């Protein structure tokens, strides 16, 4: 059915070659396509971008809080021994005062002498 006689003539070829090759799309088509691709999760959707900014802000704030907290704790710890020493010098009892009885500190009975302890142990054995 197909034969070479049906090939295009030169004027036909020329007419086909002269057909316009391009049409300018509407102004909104590009934005429509990009928006549609974004809604499918490409290029990082607007919601994703907003969320990533919020996440980054929270992370930065948390890191700053941790850093400031660390610095403050460090300063406090460094300051404590000298302050404690100063306080001790002012408020601790003088070395010449008699020591408190043991039972006043530990609330335990005074230690028995060793002979008594040994005798009691032998009774149990």
């Amino acid at each position: 059915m197909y034969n070479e006689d049906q090939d295009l003539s030169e004027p036909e070829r020329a007419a086909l070659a002269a057909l316009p090759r391009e049409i300018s799309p509407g102004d909104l088509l590009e934005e429509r396509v990009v928006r549609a691709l974004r809604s499918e999760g490409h290029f990082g959707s607007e919601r994703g971008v907003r969320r990533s900014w919020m996440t980054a802000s929270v992370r930065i704030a948390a890191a700053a809080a941790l850093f400031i907290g660390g610095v403050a704790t460090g300063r406090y710890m460094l300051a404590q021994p000298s302050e404690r020493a100063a306080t001790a010098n002012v408020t601790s009892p003088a070395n010449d005062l008699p020591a408190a009885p043991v039972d006043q500190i530990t609330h335990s009975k005074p230690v028995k002498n060793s002979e008594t302890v040994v005798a009691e142990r032998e009774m149990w054995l």
Partner: protein
Amino acid sequence: MTVSLAVTGSDQSALVSPDLIRVSGSDSSDAALVAAAVVGGEAAFRELFRRHTPHLLQFVSRVLGQSAGDAEDVVQDTWLRAYPALVTFRNDSAFSTWLCSVGLRAALDSMRRGKRRGTELLLEDDDAPLELPHHEERMDLEKAIAALAPGYRMILVLHDVEGFTHEEIALQLGIAPGTSKAQLFKARRVMRVLLTGREKNDVQ
């Protein structure tokens, strides 16, 4: 007007940050733009879009026989299909050819949806007798192409306007190359009638 990182061939899907590929101006190669767009480069995609959409729109509207305004939905569909498939693009063919093949599939799907709604058949039967139109007035070439039956129009546009071979058309449309040749033969005869304005009896 620079591309700071040119990625070509099979390297185009390499893991590179879109920020590393600065694409600006119209002298960037399609391969570099594709590589940047694949990794999420919106600017590169927009450049590809601006570069190839005018031809794609002309091609799709010619295949559909519709005005450009009506064809824009198919062009949008084409880009939505093409973007995720950019990773599969190799430089074996020109990007515009690859994009047109995606556009052709989108146009076919659009026409099939139209067919379900009761419009014309896409491809006519090879053995069906050629029905030449009765058309007394000469018609402009663009209008004559638009007036062809969809199957004729598609093959005439692909072969005579876009320069596809019968083998490529057969591959794209899932038909035999012989069918493509037969359809083109009929399409040209009908088109000549439309262009010359001869009556039915004069040409048969």
